[in-house]
């Protein structure tokens, strides 16, 4: 099929490629940009592992074609920590609270929580649980993740 040229900023770096329209944004990030931090669990929008920021908004990168992100600014989990490698408050809180075990779902949680706290810096427990409902974790039982969000809120205060 006819390929489309795409250009997008990924974690502040300009990228460009010629892509098949069916290439998802997730596969673009992983295979064309080599940014394998964005994980693919279900590839149909249920698990949330592939969540990235597109123009600052959290979206499922498996439910977007790369061609649809043409001209956008994308932030992946690799772009959340500061350039010198210092963890963001969300990442540090997840480590502190044992909010991860195997780590597969963690990139999606990091990005989703980052977006959640940008929108609402002081969420209630209920708002946190609702905000996390779009991401699956099969290890932790979620309590450590909920605690991490509370801690991240304190750290950012």
């Amino acid at each position: 099929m006819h390929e489309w040229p795409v250009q997008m900023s990924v974690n502040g770096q300009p990228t460009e490629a010629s892509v098949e329209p069916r290439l998802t944004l997730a596969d673009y990030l992983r295979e064309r940009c080599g940014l394998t931090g964005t994980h693919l669990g279900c590839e149909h929008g249920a698990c949330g592992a592939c969540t990235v920021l597109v123009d600052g908004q959290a979206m499922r990168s498996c439910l977007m074609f790369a061609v649809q992100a043409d001209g956008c600014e994308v932030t992946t989990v690799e772009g959340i920590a500061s350039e010198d490698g210092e963890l963001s408050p969300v990442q540090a809180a997840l480590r502190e609270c044992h909010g991860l075990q195997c780590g597969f779902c963690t990139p999606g949680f990091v990005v989703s929580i980052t977006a959640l706290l940008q929108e609402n810096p002081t969420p209630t427990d209920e708002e946190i649980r609702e905000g996390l409902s779009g991401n699956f974790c099969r290890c932790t039982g979620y309590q450590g993740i909920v605690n991490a969000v509370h801690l991240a809120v304190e750290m950012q205060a």
Partner: protein
Amino acid sequence: MKAAPFAYHRPGAVNEAVDLLAEYGDDAKILAGGQSLVPMLAMRLTHFDNLVDISRIEELVGIDLCDGEVRIGAATPHAFVGMDDEVADSVPLLTLATPYIGHFQIRTRGTLGGAIAHADPAAEYAAVALALDARMEAVSPRGAREIAAKEFFTGLWENSMALDEILTAVRFPVWGARSGFAVEEFARRHGDFAIAGAAVAVELDDDHRVTRCGIGLLGLGSTPLRGSPAEDAVLDRPVGEITADEVGRLAISSLDDIPADLQGSATYRAKVGATMVARAWKSATAEASNA
């Protein structure tokens, strides 16, 4: 879990999109937010040779209040609708329904028009459109036309638009000051498709009589539905004489197409549906009585 190859089209205006649809016929599908279509393509439940991406057509995005109606462009994302103050003031049922749609990472991308055109029986905005007698604006090579919500949903994932027609906007009527609104739905996990749910709008006169009632049902048929027997039964009656259980029972009384699946039998869904209607009725009438 990868979509089969397709050709991608990104028209800059509605007329260009309509021309593409007319050219490709049933080999083309509109791509808006893609939050339902992309998974179906990925799982290869469906395929189209051509996708026409309307998500960047600026004239399809926006919210306007005019002539007692709120007009929402079809490509307006759920998140915009849910956060809009004018919508919250004028068509609160949309604001109340929005948090039930998927998750916030879905609502940033999914669109109001996409959700309604997709016509899933569990779609919240579709139930709201039905309950409020919204009107759909559609454009084809033959021009523009309006479709009443009750004429729009024709079957599972089917609507009454022609293949070369695009849903461009939905107009939601603004109800009177003494109105109340509520949405209730039940799902095993937040964000899942509801087992059953209801969107209820009720308007009272100064004597507390019901002057208008709309009940949208979701998850209780092959399309979003209205609880017409309950709407008819409450009209012109003093709201204090109507019990919520009666409204719930009547709302589901004429349903003959309730789905049964792993989530529950038809009998169970009917019971959940009646309860959701009853709860929404209680909240909506309490709000209207205090307005």
